[in-house]
Every structure is written in C-alpha cells, then in structure tokens.
C-alpha cells in the first residue's frame, strides 16, 4: 500500500485519518447548521408569536365597534362623534386666548436661538415658500386653517343643465378617476359620504374688518348645511416633493407643503368643475369642512399611521388630501391594508424625530390628550398643542414626522421591495427594518447641509 500519506508524522493510518477528518467535518457541519437554524428559527418564532399576540390582544380587548364601521380598518367606537371644528388646533387660535398666550410666550423664548440658523431660512428660501403657498392663499384663502367656502372650495358652483348618463356606478368611478389623474391627482379613490367625518359646526371667520362693529369673537359658528346631500366622495392625494420635504423643518420644506396645498386647490377645483359640467352638483374641500384621513382610508388610498397621517403604499405620508363631495352615485373602493398598523407598533421613528415630542410612544388608545383630539378612535393620538407650539417657534410648519417615516421613499424598486417586506408580521423584523432605515441614512431632519445643497442641484 502506498504510504505517501497526507499528514506526515501522524500516528494514524491513512484510513483512520480519513475517518477522523470526516467525523470532524460532520460535527462542524452539524454545529454550524444547528446555529444557523437556531438563529433563523428564533427570529421566525418570535415574529410569529408577536404576530399572534397582536391578534390575541385585539380579541381580548372586546371593544364594541360603532354600528356601520365594523369593516373599517381602524377601530371606531360608539364614543366617536363628529368633531366641533372650533376645537381644532387652528380654530382654537381664534377664541382660546389663554392657550394662545401660553404658546406665544413659551415660543418667544426659544425662537431667538432657532433664528440663528441661516441655511433654509434665507430670503431665497422664504421666497420659494411664499411662491408655493401663492395659489392656495389666492383662491382658497384660510382653508388650510379651516375657513369654509373659499373661492376654490365654493359650495355653489354652476352646474350644467344636461346630465351625463353613466352606464352604471362602476363606469362613473372609472371616468371620474381618469379625469382626476389627468387633472393632476397622484392617487384617487372613491368613498361613501359619511357624516361622522364632517365637523358638527364650522368656524367662519369674519374677514371683513368693520371698525364700527366691535364683535366679541371674530368668527361665526355655522352648521354644515350643504346645498345637496352628498352621496359619494372623490378622495384625491397629491404627492409632495421628496427632496424638499427632506429639508424639514426649514422654510424650504414649507415650500413643498404650501405647493401641496396649492395643488390641492387646483386639482380639487378642477375635478369639481368636471363633475358639475356633467350635470351633477359637486364641490371640493380640503381641511375646511371635514376630516381627510378617514375618507382616504375608506377610499383605499392607505392606512392610518402613528403620526396621525395617511400612509400610502406609493409615497408614504408624503401626500396632501383634497376631497370632492358630489351627489353623483359612484362605486366606492374597498379599504386596503398593507401592514402599516403592525409596523408602526415597532417603528416609532416619527415619535423619535418629533422636535415637539407631540407623537405618542405609548400603545394606541381611544382617549385623546387635549380638546383638539376627537376621542373614540383606537389609534395613537398626537398632541396638537405641542405640535403648533413648535411651528410658532420654528417660524414655519414642520414635516419631521413625514421625513422620518420609513414609508416615505422615492418610487424605486428597492424601496417597493422593502415596503412589501414590511408587510410581513413580526415585531423583531419591523424593529430591525426601522433601525436599518436609520442606519442607511434615510429620514434625517434638521439637515443644514442638505438645505444649503438644495439650490446647487438641478
């Protein structure tokens, strides 16, 4: 037998040595495989268990849902009532003088330090901000603060005498959506009119200054008595610019927000005009007479997120919403979910990035934190008082919660893949994904360099 064995100096015969090596390799392989399977199994098992626990928690909770809202993706209880617009944070500034004094005095102390930042707050940046808001301020004056019946959102626009006959409600939905996309909508969906989302009373500011009539309050409270009973709601989402929103909370980000409001006004007015020209009464509205996010959820445009905003699959929370109320019977869309609720439980990036600490880190609840919340909805309630206080300190609105949201991404394949992966249940997976999102450098706020670089890019 040839003895040019592999391991010179070994006491074992080649045959024994081979057996020894084979055994060692098998044991190594076994331990390696066991470790890999163990790690994968732990992650999978904990994901499945936490997924099951979430379902179990909801079953255990046994909160009765409001009649007619059983299929709504967000739990609505009987306690939920139409909100009084007077209590929204924007309208409170008209009558809650103690609140205004408090936030103004606290904001003044901090404003000095913030004004020292220059990039994003120069004349160039502020001019762009003003330009973004220009159309909204001209044609939908005050609507962003809740003022109803501005020119673009007039309830009584002219209606054609000739009624266009659609084949059926499905046909109406197809044509209305096609028109909406043509007229500038990024996303469009149809919902049934629901009086729960309309304010119980509307705040109409007295914009004419009459020095002879010294009114105690500068507004009237009116009932939302529309010229017709709306049947359908065309819900339109307008995308905001990704790069500008990433500059939050500077004046440049405010330009993107303002442009969003201007586009809302343009698209909403156009779609309502289209519907009226077909012979059906219709009018558009933004923030002014009803809540937008619940309608958008009903129309299947997205889900409610931890930050209180609509999270869409295409753009995340980086959208502005406008609705068109109409008497036309249009086939409504179905609610769509894609894992946002479960992801938001683990993520908390919006809460971490909020400079006002206005977004909840706690579990969802049905009780709000201030009178500017509408109780009875099982969700994470934000604190609008803290939020608006920061806006005043900042000298412009803030979109940190939009910027930081992992769903806020440009429309590219690898982000779509990650969003799809986020739809799988499991808190550990979601926590890892949220941390990785931060590690990869997405969702940064207060980025002075990015503000400076904005004007250098094409």
């Amino acid at each position: 037998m040839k003895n040019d064995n592999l391991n010179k100096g070994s006491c074992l015969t080649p045959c024994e040595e081979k057996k020894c090596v084979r055994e060692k390799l098998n044991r190594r392989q076994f331990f390696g495989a066991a470790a890999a399977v163990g790690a994968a199994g732990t992650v999978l098992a904990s994901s499945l268990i936490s997924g099951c626990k979430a379902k179990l928690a909801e079953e255990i909770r046994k909160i009765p849902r409001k009649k007619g809202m059983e299929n709504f993706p967000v739990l609505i209880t009987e306690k939920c009532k139409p909100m009084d617009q007077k209590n929204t944070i924007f309208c409170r500034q008209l009558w809650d003088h103690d609140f205004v004094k408090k936030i103004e005095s606290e904001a003044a102390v901090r404003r000095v330090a913030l004004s020292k930042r220059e990039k994003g707050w120069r004349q160039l940046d502020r001019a762009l901000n003003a330009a973004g808001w220009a159309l909204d301020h001209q044609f939908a004056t005050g609507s962003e603060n809740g003022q109803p019946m501005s020119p673009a959102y007039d309830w009584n626009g002219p209606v054609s005498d000739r009624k266009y006959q659609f084949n059926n409600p499905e046909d109406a939905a197809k044509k209305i959506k096609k028109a909406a996309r043509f007229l500038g909508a990024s996303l469009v969906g149809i919902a049934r009119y629901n009086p729960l989302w309309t304010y119980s009373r509307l705040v109409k500011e007295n914009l004419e200054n009459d020095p002879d009539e010294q009114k105690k309050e500068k507004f009237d409270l009116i009932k939302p008595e529309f010229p017709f009973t709306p049947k359908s709601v065309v819900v339109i989402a307008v995308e905001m610019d990704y790069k500008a929103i990433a500059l939050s909370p500077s004046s440049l980000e405010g330009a993107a927000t303002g442009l969003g409001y201007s586009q809302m006004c343009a698209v909403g007015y156009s779609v309502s005009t289209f519907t009226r020209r077909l012979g059906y009464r219709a009018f558009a509205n933004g923030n002014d007479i009803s809540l937008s996010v619940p309608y958008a959820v009903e129309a299947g445009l997205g889900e409610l997120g931890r930050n209180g905003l609509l999270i869409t699959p295409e753009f995340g929370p980086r959208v502005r919403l406008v609705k068109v109320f109409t008497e036309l019977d249009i086939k409504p869309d179905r609610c769509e979910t894609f894992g946002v609720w479960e992801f938001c439980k683990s993520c908390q990036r919006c809460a971490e990035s909020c400079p006002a600490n206005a977004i909840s880190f706690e579990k969802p609840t049905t009780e709000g934190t201030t009178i500017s919340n509408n109780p009875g909805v099982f969700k994470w309630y934000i604190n609008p008082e803290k939020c608006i206080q920061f806006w005043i300190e900042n000298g412009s609105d803030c979109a940190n919660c939009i910027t930081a949201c992992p769903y806020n991404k440009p429309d590219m394949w690898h982000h779509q893949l990650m969003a799809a992966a986020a739809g799988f249940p499991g808190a550990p997976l979601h926590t890892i994904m949220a941390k990785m999102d931060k590690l990869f450098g997405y969702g940064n706020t207060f980025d002075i360099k990015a503000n400076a670089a904005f004007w250098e890019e094409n």
Partner: protein
Amino acid sequence: MEFLWSLIGAMAVLLICGLRSWIKKGKKKVTFFSWLGIFVFFLLALFSTAWMISCFIEGETRAAVIGFSIFGTVTMVIFAITRKKILKDSKTRYPSARGAY
C-alpha cells in the same frame, strides 16, 4: 429596461457556461445544495450591485455604501460556503485528485 433584463440574462448565461467548464475540467461534483448555493449567490450578487447602483442614482451615497457592505458580505459568505462544499464533495468523489492512496 429591456436592455437591463438582457444584461441580466447574459450574465446568467456566462455564469452557467463558466460553471459548466469549471466543473467538467476540474472533475468537480456539484450536488443539489451546491447548485442552490450558486443560485443564491448569483441572486445576492445581483441584488447587492443593483441596490448600490439604485442608491447612487437617487443620491443616497451612504445607503449605497452600507447596503453594498451588508449585502455584499452576505454574498461572500454564501460564496465561500458553496465553494467549500463543492470542493469537499469533489474530494469525496475523486479521492485520487490529491493522491490519497
């Protein structure tokens, strides 16, 4: 888009041809798990490269570098394990390759 798919197809064909000649020449034994490893390696390599390029296109340099590091490391680990498995299986089948006895 069509060009991209053609490029991916061409890379796949080149990889398969290269593998075939390497296996034939070196008398390598490639089991089912080895083929699986090769397939996963190819997908991961493609994914890592595509991730990096996409991030650079959208201007997120940090995401490109970190993504390529993480996914690239996983790719290399799969490559190393697969290569070791192929070589080990080949030794078992062709013991005379190293002139054992």
